[in-house]
């Protein structure tokens, strides 16, 4: 499969909002709660069509999550929409106590996640959300890669029995999947052809999956067998998929729009080490640094999260692995 300009889809946020409108048409218990974020969350059309099903809280994220938990306790299917940076930091205690600890199945939707807000700076970046939420029990964590994953995940989230966090970026995403594909929360999807053995495995999440996939295609053209996994769900973590592909690979690179501390890479490394699967490994993400200023693409390039950098990093890692073997 290759990505062409013609297969460029919409933003995942747009697909989220449209999917929710389709679902709300048949389910009056679906509610959106938001913190003055209906514009950036693309839910203005939802608010216009279903004025009884949106609850505006204003810029008060702690209250937003607390109220959402109370609504969920009364049987409402609540999608709490707010920028990921504020939602998972300012309201972290409400997510921990009111939602996760108290076990109310709120759908916590972090919009404009990672470095989507680009030059708005660190106040608006969420490079901590995976780390923070992975340390909190009883909340699933999902970051869809493309429009297909977004649509399916939202459809599944409506009646998901547990609290769930779903994060979206804000740029138009290429279509990565055959729309007839099945998807489950907690099950990784392999984007590249299946082989018995691989030279390299990319494990990526969210909007970085497309970059990893494009790098895979480039490596494939050079005869390097690559497995590219879209691990859209960080929790529950798909141990079986990781074990299977990494065991059959010479090296592994994880890719995420998140701090390299406590996110996807740390999770994969921890799993591999504890299961005696030792491979040359590189964790690509945002390092422990004052994040460089720029738009999302520029920040990706600066930290080696773009397809070209990933391609070069893969060659370097494979070369290193080979030298170690010698």
């Amino acid at each position, binding site marked *: 499969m290759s990505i062409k300009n013609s297969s460029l889809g919409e933003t995942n946020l747009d697909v989220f909002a449209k999917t929710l409108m389709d679902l709300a048409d048949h389910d009056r218990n679906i509610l959106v709660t938001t913190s003055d974020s209906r514009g950036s969350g693309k839910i203005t059309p939802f608010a216009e069509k279903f004025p009884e099903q949106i609850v505006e809280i204003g810029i008060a994220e702690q209250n937003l999550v607390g*109220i959402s938990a*109370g609504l969920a306790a009364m049987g409402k299917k609540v999608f709490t929409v707010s920028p990921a940076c504020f939602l998972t930091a300012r309201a972290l205690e409400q997510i921990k106590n009111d939602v996760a600890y108290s076990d109310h199945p709120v759908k916590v939707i972090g919009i404009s996640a990672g470095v989507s807000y680009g030059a708005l700076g660190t106040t608006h970046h969420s490079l901590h959300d995976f780390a923070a939420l992975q340390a909190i029990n009883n909340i699933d964590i999902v970051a869809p890669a493309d429009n297909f994953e977004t649509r399916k995940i939202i459809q599944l989230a409506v009646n998901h029995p547990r609290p769930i966090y779903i994060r979206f970026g804000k740029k138009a995403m290429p279509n990565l999947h055959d729309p007839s594909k099945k998807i489950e929360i907690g099950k990784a999807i392999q984007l590249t052809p299946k082989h018995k053995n691989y030279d390299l495995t990319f494990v990526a999440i969210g909007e970085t999956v497309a970059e990893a996939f494009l790098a895979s295609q480039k490596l494939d053209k050079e005869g390097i067998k690559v497995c590219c996994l879209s691990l859209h769900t960080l929790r529950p973590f798909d141990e079986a998929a990781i074990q299977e592909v990494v065991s059959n690979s010479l090296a592994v690179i994880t890719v995420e729009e998140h701090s390299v501390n406590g996110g996807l890479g740390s999770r994969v490394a921890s799993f591999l080490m504890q299961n005696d699967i030792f491979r040359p490994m590189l964790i690509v993400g945002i390092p422990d640094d004052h994040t460089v200023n720029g738009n999302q693409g520029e920040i990706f390039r600066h930290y080696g999260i773009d397809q070209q950098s990933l391609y070069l990093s893969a060659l370097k890692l494979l070369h290193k692995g080979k030298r170690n073997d010698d």
Partner: protein
Amino acid sequence: MSLDLQFLSHQIEYKLERKSIEYRKSIIKLIYMSKAGHTGGSLSCVDILNVLYNQVMNITPNNVSAIDRDHYIHSKGHSVEALYAVLMDLGFFSEDKMSTFEKYNSPFIGHPTRNVPGIEQNTGALGHGLSFSVGMALAAKMDRRNNKIFTIMGDGELTEGSIWEASASAAHYHLDNLVAIIDRNNLQITGKTEKVMNMEPLHEKFLAYGYAVRHVDGNDIGELISIFREIPFESGKPNLVIAHTIKGKGISFMEDNVAWHHRVPTDSEFLTAMQELEQAELSLECQ
């Protein structure tokens, strides 16, 4: 009020006053036996819980799954011992189960959790209960149900900013089915609430946020019954009750004494406290 009604009213008050003494015994016993707990705050709010559960709210072990019953959220989660005492009396669980309080693997921990029958939300971190209650009240309004949502907050808790965020929402959505109660005992762990952080004038502040505000002696059963009968105080406005209480109420040496925020009675203090409660029971019967 006719003489018959007056007699009935006195009977109800007498019955609830007896219960308050029993609840205080349970609280002291629980804290003494487990060597842990929040003594003063449980004793200050227990009369309010008594009246709510026995006279105002329609919450029983038999209707917990009913969608249109009332709901109670214990926002000042550290005073869970008072809630345990009342729920046990209502038959949500046995005294045997409650006596596992703070023991290994017991669901009866030092703050409310939904693992204990009758408790609806996990609390303990302050400033959470009001937002959660606003969500519940909003859902009840959306579904056009007539049930009410009650929550008790501590006065020290009012410095949490989330309380004021929630207050704005309660008024904005005209939640006259929400009853927020402040256990105004004037003490928190460090000392006098107004010395730690002056939050007065509370009445004017809550009024400005859009509540209908009432004051009550929060340790007076008769006054509590009367005030809750008036709900909703004003149509379209959330209800706010400032319940003036005494921390450590009912035990002379604990009353208005900050040391008893979470102090555990010694053997002799325990005996004295129980004797005082026995004496209060006798005095009540003589009235």
